[in-house]
Every structure is written in structure tokens, then in C-alpha cells.
């Protein structure tokens, strides 16, 4: 922090525990279509990081390719970002996280980027439990290439050009749960009351945290007949509200006994799930999968924290990698020197 220069701030702008204002978490002006769901996700990320008082420069944001993957430009301007290649952000994030375990990683992807070209890397990212938050801005189509169906488009959804989708959609949240993800949530870009605490909780989770966010594409998939339009999503939303209380912060809200379920994350933060809206415990993977399945069958979109295992072991832990970030190791730690090499030579004679 020693490099932080005091600078003039509007006296009325609220600051967080680090003294940052929300402006310190903003990025460049968005160039996405006005009304695009993705912009709401960007602002939810901005608010989430501001409220959780994360140091912006200690966050690294990575993405693949698509309108959604452009998002990192529009939030966290003080953070380094990496717009990688289509569907391959998971591998870049894996390497980055191995190289420096000291940063907080946030990955932004689209439904095309994740569920089609990037499906292989996505599944393996979950399997390895890379310590990051992975958000899919799910609009059921390829926005950037002008509206083709994506693999998450629901069966029977009608495209802008009138074609009826004949395939079952891939449900990324169920897939993530099946594959063993330790944190799985779903939300709607238009529901910031739920999305913001969900992102805050995900960023506190020490392991792979996945959030599938329905994020309507106003240009190509917001018409009648589309199952991922604003209207259709609002209509069918079955939202499970939650609050997030970060570690070291006092719980100030009073909940009526029996109305909430508290889940403590590894870093001491607490998620309060409002019990009225869910019937299963989030630590039960099978129950969570069932609940999602039931909702889908009834045409409802179940959103909220779907599943959580606060104790899952991430990649760096599983590989028993040194606590000091690998990118900080120097010659002394890495290079065995000439004496060792001479004895290796000796063994080769």
C-alpha cells in the first residue's frame, strides 16, 4: 500500500474499509449494446468488490472471447486483465493461479465460450478446483457473431430468425455440481440484490466458484419465444435471496430465528440464506441437483446459492505447492548449483 498516493476525492462519496470509492473499481466505458445484461453483471462485480473491500490490484480478471468476454474492460480498471482466446480462458487462469497464488482471480465467459468451444477446458477447470470465481454471462446465443444459438439455448426456444431450437440445452450449473465444483450459484443479471452477495461469497470461497448468470442479449435474443429474454426470465424466476457478511465484519442484521440458514466460508465470512425460499440444505449435492432439475421441469429458473462445500481443497493445496508464490522464487530457491550438476554428470559416466 505504500505506493498509494493520496488523491482528491469528492467528500461525499462513500469509501470502503480500504478508503476506496466505488469509482476505484470501475473500468472503461462499456461498448456493449444499451440494455445488454452483461453490463449489469459488470456493475454487480464493481459493487461486490467495493463492498468486500478487495484491493483492486490484487485481483486478476481473465476472459475468453465474446461480448461477455469483453466485460473485464468495463470493471476494475486497476486490475490486470487478460482477454485470451475463445474457450481457453480456463487454462490461462490455471497457469496464472499456479504462478501466483496470492491474487484473487475472476474469470468471465459466455455460454458459447464455455459450453461449446471451451467445454473441455471448463470441465477440467472444475475437476482441478482452481481457486477462482468463474462467471458465465448466459444469453443462450452467440452475441458477438450475431445471434446464433448457443449450446445453453433451451429446447424449443425460438431464435430471432424464427428457428425453433431442436436440442436440449446444456445446464452449466448442474454440470458444475456433477463435476464436483465446491461453489455453484445461479443468478439473473437483473437481480442485483441476489447477484452482488453471490459474487462476494464466490470471491471469498477458497476454490473454484461457479456462477451461471442469465444475461439477456437485447439485440439477438430478447424477443417473444426466446426463453432467455428479460420478460421470460423475470416471469419464471424462482429466486432464493441471500446476504453476505465478510469476515471481520459484524453481523448487524437481525434475522428472525428459523428464517435463515447461515453458512460460514473458510475465510470466516458468512452467507445468510433466506430459508423461506428453499427447501434443501446447500451442502447436499444430490438435493441441490434435484432441486434444479425439479425447477427446470416446472419451467422455473431456480437462482441463488445452489451448492456449497466450504472446505473443498483447491489446486495449489492439492499439489502441495509452496505458500510463497512461485513467481517470487529466485535463483537460490530454484537453481541447485554446480556441485549438484557435477554429481549428476558423475552418475552419467
Amino acid at each position: 500500500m505504500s505506493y498509494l498516493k493520496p488523491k482528491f476525492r469528492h467528500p461525499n462519496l462513500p469509501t470502503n474499509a480500504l478508503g476506496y470509492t466505488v469509482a476505484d473499481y470501475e473500468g472503461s466505458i462499456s461498448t456493449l449494446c444499451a440494455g445488454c445484461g452483461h453490463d449489469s453483471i459488470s456493475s454487480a462485480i464493481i459493487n461486490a468488490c467495493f463492498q468486500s473491500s478487495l484491493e483492486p490490484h490484487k485481483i486478476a480478471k481473465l476472459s475468453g472471447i465474446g461480448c461477455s468476454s469483453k466485460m473485464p474492460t468495463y470493471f476494475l480498471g486497476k486490475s490486470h486483465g487478460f482477454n485470451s482466446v475463445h474457450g481457453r480462458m480456463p487454462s490461462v487462469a490455471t497457469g496464472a493461479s499456479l504462478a501466483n497464488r496470492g491474487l484473487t482471480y475472476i474469470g468471465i465467459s459466455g455460454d458459447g465460450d464455455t459450453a461449446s468451444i471451451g467445454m473441455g477446458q471448463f470441465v477440467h477447470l472444475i475437476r482441478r478446483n482452481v481457486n477462482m470465481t468463474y462467471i458465465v454471462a448466459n444469453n443462450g446465443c452467440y452475441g458477438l457473431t450475431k445471434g446464433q444459438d448457443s449450446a445453453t439455448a433451451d429446447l424449443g426456444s425460438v431464435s430471432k430468425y424464427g428457428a425453433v431450437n431442436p436440442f436440449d440445452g446444456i445446464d452449466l450449473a448442474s454440470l458444475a455440481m456433477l463435476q464436483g465444483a465446491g461453489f455453484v450459484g445461479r443468478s439473473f443479471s437483473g437481480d442485483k440484490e441476489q447477484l452482488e452477495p453471490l459474487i462476494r461469497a464466490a470471491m471469498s470461497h477458497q476454490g473454484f466458484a461457479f456462477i451461471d448468470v442469465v444475461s439477456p442479449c437485447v439485440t439477438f435474443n430478447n424477443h417473444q419465444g426466446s426463453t432467455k429474454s428479460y420478460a421470460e426470465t423475470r416471469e419464471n424466476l424462482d429466486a432464493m435471496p441471500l446476504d453476505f457478511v465478510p469476515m471481520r465484519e459484524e453481523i448487524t442484521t437481525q434475522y428472525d430465528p428459523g428464517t435463515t440458514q447461515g453458512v460460514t466460508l473458510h475465510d470466516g465470512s458468512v452467507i445468510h440464506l433466506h430459508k423461506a425460499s428453499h427447501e434443501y440444505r446447500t451442502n447436499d449435492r444430490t438435493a441441490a441437483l434435484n432441486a434444479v432439475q425439479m425447477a427446470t421441469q416446472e419451467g422455473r429458473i431456480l437462482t441463488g446459492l445452489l451448492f456449497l462445500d466450504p472446505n473443498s481443497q483447491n489446486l495449489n493445496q492439492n499439489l502441495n505447492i509452496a505458500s510463497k508464490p512461485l513467481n517470487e522464487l529466485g535463483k537460490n530457491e530454484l537453481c541447485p548449483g554446480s556441485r549438484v550438476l557435477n554429481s549428476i554428470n558423475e552418475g552419467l559416466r
Partner: protein
Amino acid sequence: MKQIAGINDFVVKFANVNGTGSASANHLFAKSIFRMGIPVSPRNIFPSNIQGLPTWYEVRVSSKGYLGRRGGVDLMVCVNPQSMEKDVASVEPGGYFLFDNTKPLAPHLKRDDITYFGVPLTQMCMREYDTPRLQQLLKNVVYVGVLAALLDIEFPILKNLLNDQFKGKEKLISSNVHALEMGYQYATENFQCPLPIRLESGGNVAPHILESEHILMNGNTAVALGAIYGGATVAAWYPITPSTSVVDAFAKYAERMRIDPGTGKKNFAIVQAEDELAAIGMVIGAGWNGARAFTATSGPGLSLMSEFLGLAYFAELPAVLIDVQRSGPSTGMPTRSQQSDILAAAYASHGDTKHVLLFPATPRECFDMTVQAFDLAEQLQTPIIMMSDLDLGMNDWMSPPLEWDDDYQMQRGKVLDADGLEEAKDWGRYVDVDGDGICYRTLPGAHPDRGSYFTRGSSKNERAIYSESGDDYVQNVDRLVRKFETAKSYVPAPKTHPPIKVKKPKTKLNLGAVFFGTSASPAYEAVETLAEMGYGIDTMRIRAFPFHESLDQFIADHDRVFVIEQNRDGQMRQLIMNECQIAPSQLTSVLNYSGTPITARSIVRQILEALEAKSADVVSLHPETA
């Protein structure tokens, strides 16, 4: 019949069935010759199969220290009935054929210009050992015993090697020694030992070889050690022959040398990725974050990595890729050697891309160049591709010992840390402050409010702000050309040798030969042979791309230059033509792409053919030199 004769100069080839344990016996044979101080180069020629198919092991012994393949076989050791017909036919006239005569030799396999040695290997082992496994394994050791008598291998050396190999397992040692003795005794009782071809410690071996303390190691192990010493901390890979043993060896050494003594935790990470796309993605992600990272692969993997290589080129991220080349696609000949990824690597990916390539020719160079690759990747902020091949990577090579300078400092290139960012007046990620095309990088997390930027391909301006302006694009990619020019002075320069004196020159032409990697050893041998025949040829061994200026000069200085390489299309010749403005007629290809490493004899033959065919119509542009 005139038998082939000579001390410390011959080729022995073993014909085995794979999966029968022959490899370690054959290795024992080769290593014993090495321990006698005689230059030796063993080569495994194996199928893409785990058990049951023919496999060969060729051992070249050369007092002059020629380590490439010579061509031809003087002594064939055949324990595989499947391939016997072909094996008999491959022996040089006057040569020798050792075989298992438990079953009598078929009459049509009888040649009258070679000498046969029948040893009842199967029968002896059936009699001596009771389990089928032992019978199979020790059969191989018995023929090594026979060879010890026939070729005069020092018996104590063999015993010592077995002691080293089976340290502490007394029973194994004694059964192996017994098998050796059984073969040795059979040979001395039944054959005239030693043969006219034989070994002699010291003998006629060139003094400079006798004096140096050579080691015997394969290139992949040397690369792995280079990665350890070069400070690599992240390795991501997907298994593919012949590169697999690079990461295997890295893992082995890292487990020994990279465990934090205080915590027992690892100062490295190895990930077996889901495919090569992911492997290179991980390397690039780690490099972006400032760790030294590498992957190892072969042709098919290189193809899969090509999109990411383009991104890394344009986004200017360090990465080290070891390409251990093999023949063609997955159903090409995956266990056969070639140098056939040259163009695919040099121009890998979309758009205008060019990559820095390194061409090691010995294990020692594999080690040195791997260390250097990590420096170059960070100095030049770009992927560095090291072009090894199966022959170098997987076979044991006699090599000068690996050397390490304890004063070595990692060259991390132009990276601004927090202090640097404070000092830098007006930082921009892609501003060419120094005019060498290399700009100042920053790493994530370095400074609270300076130096952050969004890494992406080429739609950006000098300050890494999104831009689709044509001017910005052109400025950026032109700077990358400048950087590639700068790279010429960073990469290893080519090697030349003083010209060989030719007594009675048969040509007025000024001849040159250019080669690289595993083509070098047989090329040097061929050049010496040709000199004796009256053709003086100057040589240049290329060690890196972009090419050094001296390559242009070398080609300009010669009437005709042979480009010796191991692929069908003369890929290095094409790359030179493309990059050096050379007229195609100046460069003549000398090729081998059969999957087995090129031989000195084949190079000699091709050069003679080319000269006889064309020498009449080439006008010498240069004064005679001889």
C-alpha cells in the same frame, strides 16, 4: 570370403521383439563400450506399440568420435524370427550374423558372403532358468556375454555396470552375471574369439576424446535439467512420444531438488493437461504472471498449440515450448525421428507471426539452450520453441559434461516492478522506449494504481487501450518486426569450422553445407569423407532462427550450398530462401525422411550425385581456394 575388420570402428545392430526386456541388455552393451573410453552412439529404432512388434537397437562404434549414423550393419544380433529375413539381408558383405539357433536357420537365409554364429540362446535359458520371465529376460544378457567374447569387451566393466544397475539386489546381480558368463563361455568354446572387428580400450581413439570426461545421456533428460537450472516453476503438458520423458525427467529432478526444506512443499507445479491447447494456455497464463513456464510436445501437439502461440506472439508473453519432433501425424510414424516441424514452428499460427527457434545438436546444447530459452522468452517477451527430435531426445549421446556457472543470473528482461513504475514517467505497455522493439512489461499485482492493463491480441494501441485503428495495428506489428531483428543478436550464433585441407581437389566450385540439430554429426562425418575424396566443403551449423547475418554471407560466399535436413520438403532450405533473399538454385537439398536418422553415407552419396549431375553447368563465381 573377406571379413570386415577394424578396431573400434563398426556398427552392431540388434533385432528384438519389443516388450521382452531387450532394451536394458542392449543398453548394457553400449554403456560398457562407453566405459571402455571408446566413442559409441546407440539408437533405439522402435515401433509405436507396447509389446510384440519388431524393434531394433543400433550401436555405432567410432574411434574418430562420429556419433551420427554411418549406414550399413557389420554385425547383426538377431533374436527376432519375425524380422530375420530382412535382418540377414541388411548385413554388409563380409559382415557377421549372430542368431538364436535353437531352431535351425532356414536355408534361404544362408548367404555365403557373411559369417554366421549360431547360439542356442532359448535352449540354454530353458535349461538354466525355471520361470518364463527369467528365461526371456536373461536370454538378452546371454547374448551380451557372447558379444563380450566376440568383441573383447572388458568383463569387469560389464559386472560393474550390473552392480550399478541393480544396487543392493544381490540375487539379480548374480543371476545376470551368471547369464553373462554363460554366453561368454559358449562363445570362447565354440567360436574364434575375438573377431576381426573388435574393441580396444584407448586403442586408436582420438586423444581429445580420451581426455575429455564425456557423459552418456539423452537430450530429453538434458532439457529437463535445463528447465530445473533455468528456474522453470510451472510445467504443463500432454503426453506424446517422443517428448514425454522431458516432463518425466523434470518431475523426477524436481521432486529431488525443488522441495522446500522447511515446509516440504513444492517449489514447482506440474500439470498433466487435458490436451495441448490447455497445456500451452497454462504456460502462457503462468508466463503472464511472471513465472518461468514450459511445455513439451511433438508435431500433433504443436498444431494444437498454434492458436495460442499466435496470441502469445501478439500479446508478447514469454513461453518455452520444447518440440521433440517425430514423423508426421499421430498415425504417421510417431516413434520415428524427423526434423519436419521447422516451417510449422517458425510460422506457427494466424496473421503475420514468426517465432524464435533454437536448434540443439547435443545433450549439452539441450541443457544450455533450455536455460537460455527461459532467458530469451523473458528478454524478448515471446514464445521460444526449441526444436529437438526423437533421435536427440530419446537416444543416449556421448556428450561433454554439463557445466554450470554459479554466477548465472536469470535474465528477466524489461519488467517494471513497483519501484520501476514509480520512477517511469510515462509508462505504456507497448511504447518502444529503447528503439529495439522490446517494451516494458508489468506483472499483475505489482502496484496499486499503476501498470495495470488489459492483455489482448493486436487490437490495441501503444498504451494497451482497445483500438481497431489501422495505424495502431501497423505500428504495433512493425515494431514486432523490429523486435525480431533485435532477437538476431540475442540468439545463439551459428558454428563454423576452419576449412578442411583437400589434397587433390576435384572441383573448382566453392562448396558449402548448412545443417542443424541431429543432422550435424553425420554431416560433419560426410564432409570429412568427401574431403578425402577431393571435395572440400565449408560448413555452417545453424543454431537459431531468426538467422544470424553470417548465414547470408556464408551462402553468398559459396557457389553452391547443400542444406542437409530430415524432412521431405527441404523445410530449412525454404525458410532460408524466404528469410535471406536467396535464389533457389544456390541451395541444394540433401534429405532423409524415412523415419530413421540420416546417415553419413547417404549424405556423401547425395552430394556426389548432385555434383556429378550439375557441376558441368555451374560457373564458379569465386577464385579457387585450393
